[in-house]
């Protein structure tokens, strides 16, 4: 559910020209699908959608690079 929602947002808003398969362990930042500003938009989306708040040091690749890591972070904060 969380992954589906993130995936939809990434594909429709952040990387609409991406035509490949967005697997759960696809490296969004590492493979350059989303840049630093898209990352901020993603954080903004997650905060609003899931009612959680990122601390400044949590806006990093460890938490945001894959659908799996994003889901794990959201669950840990809910």
């Amino acid at each position: 559910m969380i992954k589906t929602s993130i995936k939809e947002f990434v594909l429709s808003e952040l990387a609409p020209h991406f035509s490949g398969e967005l697997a759960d362990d696809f490296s969004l930042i590492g493979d350059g699908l989303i840049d630093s500003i898209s990352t901020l938009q993603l954080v903004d989306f997650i905060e609003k959608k899931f009612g959680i708040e990122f601390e400044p040091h949590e806006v990093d690749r460890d938490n945001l690079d894959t659908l799996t890591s994003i889901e794990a972070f959201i669950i840990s904060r809910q």
Partner: protein
Amino acid sequence: MLSHKSLGQWVRARFDDLATQPGFTTNQACNDLSNNRTHLELKQDVDHIQTQLAKIGVRAYDRVSLCTTKSCDSYAALLALVSADVCYIPIDSLAPSFRVGSIIRDSRPKGILIDLDLTDSLPNEFKNVPQHRIHNTELIYLDLGFEQLADVNKELAYILYTSGSTGQPKGVLISHANALSFINWAALNFEFSQADTFASVAPYHFDLSVFDLFVSLYWGAGVVLFNDQHIRNPLLLAQQIEAHGISVWYSTPTILVLMERYGKLGKYTHASLRTVLYAGEILPLTSLKSLGSYWGNASWYNLYGPTETNVCTWAKVSKQVTDNFDVSLIGQPCSHSTAHILSKGNIEPLGVDLEGELLISGDTVSLGYLNNKALTAEKFITCEAGIRWYCTGDQVRVIDGLGLKYLGRLDRMIKKRGYRIELDEVQTALEQCTTIRRAAVIATQDRDQEVNIVAFYETLTSEDLASQSARNHIERRLPNYMWPDRWVCLKSLPLTSTAKIDYQALTSHPALNPSQAPNIKEDT
């Protein structure tokens, strides 16, 4: 005036002077969010690195590249190069190896000081060279083996590479006199003191960093060093302003716009901010107003100047910004600069309503471009009166009582249906519009070679509303031949490594695919 022979002589004298003052052993000189140094510790690091470089064989007037992320270590290394009267050449640590290679081949430095973990990003031809670890740091010196010139230019303090319009980076030669003149002006033009804490947001390869690194040293104040990761995290920047009590901020408008948008400024107390400076682009009115409401204690200044002159004009921005505030005012010449205007082939002093290319003379005007006499001769001209002028390529107009107004880049001038159009004028008009967060206007040619004006924008409201209000705004202000042919709403505009709008990326933006219909609405 700073009468020192070199930037290095000034740095050495500065540390000697600080050493006699109370607080030398206790006051923080720099902090990179992981480590910090007092002035004494920083001086010891500088001496330590300088000694090691001397043992390796680096001598005064050599050229050495610096390819590092920003940290207390790399700041000390930069100061060690300066202090040894070595000309430093900062290279973007995130640049692709192709660009790093072309800068190294063009500048032929004796060696390169580089972060240990960045050596893999060097072009292969520079990997198998003698290497020297700099002890107690994460830096390594690679001996590139370029022959140093016999008739070396002893005047050079540093060389900054900027993007050339041809795609080949050009090295702007900055002399000791240039650097000292700028530092002297910047240190005294605003009300700084030893109690200030400076933010250093710009990377070393960007001339804004000269302000943070050396003006903080001038005052014996502290500087908080933000690296490339930090500056991409507006939440962290906002948090750190409060944590360190940052009082002086200097960045591009892009960083400010991102802070306003994503920094959750309302969460933090930023009462420490006293001086906010921005340069490099226009700060859109919406961001200026919003930031002003959070940072009410600060005095705001818009600084203007290409790398070839550093800051050469400045404008104080009113604390009470209204919707009529003109965001393109760049104010008056700095005390080290004289501004004239090239109008209809004549170089004329500033007169009300005069419009043309801005020319700058004075102590900060660069010696020219490295290995490019033709371009140097084209951009740096000497008039009949014997004055040497840098031709900025920027179009300005003199406004009565308000100083200079920036109209746009001359090379962003296009011709459409016979009309001469300044793309930046369209862009500035959009940035005055209160529903537009940021705008970037470019020209493209369609399949029939017809010129189209394309307005990319980020909005504060819904896309439909923004596009409608922006159109109304433009149509009330500009003649119809200047109206954009296409409007593309983006979630964010692409940026360059120096955090400015990346026009090159926009020209190849997928939304401009000719198979797509005009007036496309695009969400990326």
